[in-house]
């Protein structure tokens, strides 16, 4: 494994973890733009634009794009979140040049109006689908409540109204402002000849014109709240709970992840024993999620409505107990073996490495090998995990619960 990086004259950063032993190559353009870079008028444009990127360029129709990816046998897709829009493909090594060229070309899309109108229907279907399935938008609502007017409170999909009203010109303008080479990282993992990778990128992306594309970074001022939303047709009751956590630049993010594993991993954690093993809830989990300049602990729970209030109280009790009495070294050691095993397993596929590599670079401009991650996890002390709990108490949260209940008692 060898890490290489280079920056083109126009600011496009290229990073790769080259592994001669790998069978495949994974590559992706990480565009540093997402819901947090939007305003009310263009809510959902980042995600809609992600769809439009596949709809053709001056030299390719939408059909050409799909066909050419499939001709390479590429496994490809894209996703958008609050901070990034990522376009990626896993291919056989002989398609390195062709896949760089194709991905690079679609990153300069035509954004034709008729394609825009057809694809708008698909995005609206995605929004409606999302409203039909758990947690019925409660995740977005909780984030909005937690962050208030801070940009991280914005919805990735936008709303039916904002997407319906969005004109194509607004998307073109957003594209011009955000898809600047200096705001994009091209990452690769697996079997890659780095010099060839850079040459291919230079050929396809070297002519992209740079524009300053910054990002507002106001300090979040999280709110505490408890909200009940009624959805009569739902069978189960769902709850999303957010509290602050270490951000992407914070070295406490490793202890935070171990802490979340101890308390709320989907098997063998404290919440698992309290709620899942006992059959009191269908699902419960605690995750740590990191953004630029902000971090979250996210608790998710679904259960029979009859148990909802008591389950929320049980979760609060688990957190209060951890807050007051801490966690044990045995629990920490067990969490470390779980996390280490996951790092090794996900790292075996170039696709798994691509997201780790691209994420590290986009968030921190830092390369971390599998070995670095394993060592960092292994070095975490009980004291570090406990200090995260002191800095970010899990007991003060923003909670949204959705389901058939009209009222739910807030936990004490």
């Amino acid at each position, binding site marked *: 494994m060898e890490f290489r990086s280079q920056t083109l004259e126009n600011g496009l950063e290229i990073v790769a973890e080259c592994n001669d032993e790998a069978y495949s190559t994974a590559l992706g353009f990480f565009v540093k733009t997402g819901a947090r870079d939007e305003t009310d008028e263009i809510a959902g444009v980042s995600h809609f634009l992600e769809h439009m990127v596949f709809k053709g360029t001056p030299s390719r129709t939408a059909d050409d794009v799909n066909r050419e990816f499939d001709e390479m046998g590429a496994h490809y897709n894209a996703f958008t979140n609050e901070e990034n829009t990522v376009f990626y493909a896993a*291919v056989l090594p002989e398609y390195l040049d062709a896949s760089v060229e194709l991905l690079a070309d679609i990153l300069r899309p035509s954004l034709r109006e008729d394609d825009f109108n057809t694809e708008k229907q698909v995005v609206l279907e995605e929004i*409606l689908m999302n409203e039909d399935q758990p947690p019925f938008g409660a995740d977005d609502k909780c984030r909005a409540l937690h962050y208030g007017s801070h940009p991280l409170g914005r919805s990735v999909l936008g709303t039916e109204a904002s997407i319906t009203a969005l004109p194509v010109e607004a998307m073109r303008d957003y594209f011009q402002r955000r898809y600047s080479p200096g705001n994009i990282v091209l990452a690769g993992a697996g079997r890659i000849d780095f010099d060839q990778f850079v040459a291919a990128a230079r050929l396809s992306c070297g002519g992209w014109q740079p524009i300053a594309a910054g990002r507002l970074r106001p300090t979040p001022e999280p709110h505490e709240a408890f909200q009940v939303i009624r959805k009569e047709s739902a069978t189960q009751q769902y709850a999303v709970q957010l509290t602050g956590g270490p951000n992407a630049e914070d070295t406490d993010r490793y202890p935070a992840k171990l802490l979340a594993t101890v308390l709320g991993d989907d098997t063998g954690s404290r919440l698992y024993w309290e709620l899942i093993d*006992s059959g009191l809830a269908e699902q419960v989990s605690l995750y740590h999620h990191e953004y630029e300049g902000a971090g979250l602990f996210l608790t998710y729970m679904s259960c029979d409505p009859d148990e909802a209030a008591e389950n929320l109280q049980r979760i609060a009790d688990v957190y209060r107990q951890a807050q007051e009495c801490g966690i044990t070294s045995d629990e920490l050691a067990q969490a470390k*073996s779980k996390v280490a*095993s996951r790092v090794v397993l996900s790292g075996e596929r170039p696709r798994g490495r691509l997201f780790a590599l691209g994420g590290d670079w986009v968030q921190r401009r830092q390369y971390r090998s599998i070995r670095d991650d394993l060592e960092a996890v292994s070095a975490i002390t009980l004291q570090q995990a406990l200090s995260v709990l002191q800095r970010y108490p899990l007991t003060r949260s923003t909670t949204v619960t959705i389901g058939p209940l009209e009222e739910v008692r807030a936990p004490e």
Partner: protein
Amino acid sequence: MSESIYKHAFPNGLVLLAEPMSWLESVAFTFSVPAGSVDDPASRSGLASFTCEMVMRGAGERDNHHLMQDLDSLGVERGESVSDAHTRFSGATVAANLPGALALYADILRRPHLPAEQLEAARQVLIQELRAVEDEPSQKVMIELRRRHFPDPWGRPSHGEMEAVQQTSLDDVRGYFTRRYRPNGAILGVAGRFDWEALKDLVGQLLGDWQPQPADEPVEGSPGKKYEHLPFDSNQTQIAIAYPSAPYRHPDYYRAWGGVGVLSGGMSSRLFTEVREKRGLCYSVYASYHTLLDRGAVFCYAGTTAQRAQETLDVMLGELARLAKGVEPHELARLKARIKSALIMQQESSSARSSSIGRDWYYLGCVRTLEEINRRVDELTCQGINQYLEEHPPADFTVVTLGPSELEVPVGVS
């Protein structure tokens, strides 16, 4: 590609299959026990799932907590699932931890406590799962499609029915465990980094003296209605269509599968292009292949706004009719490219291989290497696929819709 797959049949019927992938750090295993949903007694649907939930609640010298702790300490990423024919216990971890993990699973399969005091908790887990499906329309419609398309017991959902789960007793679970958790018909697939001789010896020590039990065959009922609409309060209507196709073990399988690959798979496939890309009718649309031992089926799905559901159904049925007229060489070429790269990429996943080799053994009584699958796909021709499609055009549809209003299913289609 790896050419060798080790195989050893123990005298008690257990088959051990192992594919070396020495370039990986990990090893994955899948135990398939002949305890599927088809083996649930008629009044006790969900019993295989109930039993699976119970065997994980303490085994050998470990109680519930210790068992889970020890699996976690070995870094075993695990999962259990119940299919029509099997209960599967799968796991993956770093190579050095394989012996410890297999020993824990030998306890789970042979010496579970099936503790009386945990019966109600296990029942609640199953009830929660049943309730959760009610909130997942896209999942629910496919469960209802399968139930109507395949005759009972092959179409049963693995998680059972509410009433049966509520009535299941500890004796039911213990009786089912005694009859169905047995070495004859069980398959252990291992893939990744391991030493074959050591593995074979270890499995022999752990499971070689496991006693076989008599096997029986399920009794087949009849399939359900050809079209049914299930009212559901939602924005979108879920559309599900099934039709019969060749099973995996049939000589026609690859030709039949080739046609489905042109229909769905890759964004240039017909369903994606016609339903989503050209018309913007939905976000999600696909067709997938489902195989049993002696029959197969293609299941198609789309979820779309109620007002556009009829058009979506019509376009989907139109594409199924067009498929019968044959596929084009450029479509087949793309399918081959996709499969070739998927097969090569499978070599990067021990988990994918450990479950594939077990499935092959169950359906075929042998294991196809990636090399062999690649050769069979390479040998496909348009002429071969089109001949199959001409002789077996998509027909005899089962249709289920779920949403605010019923759709018109054209006469002669169902």
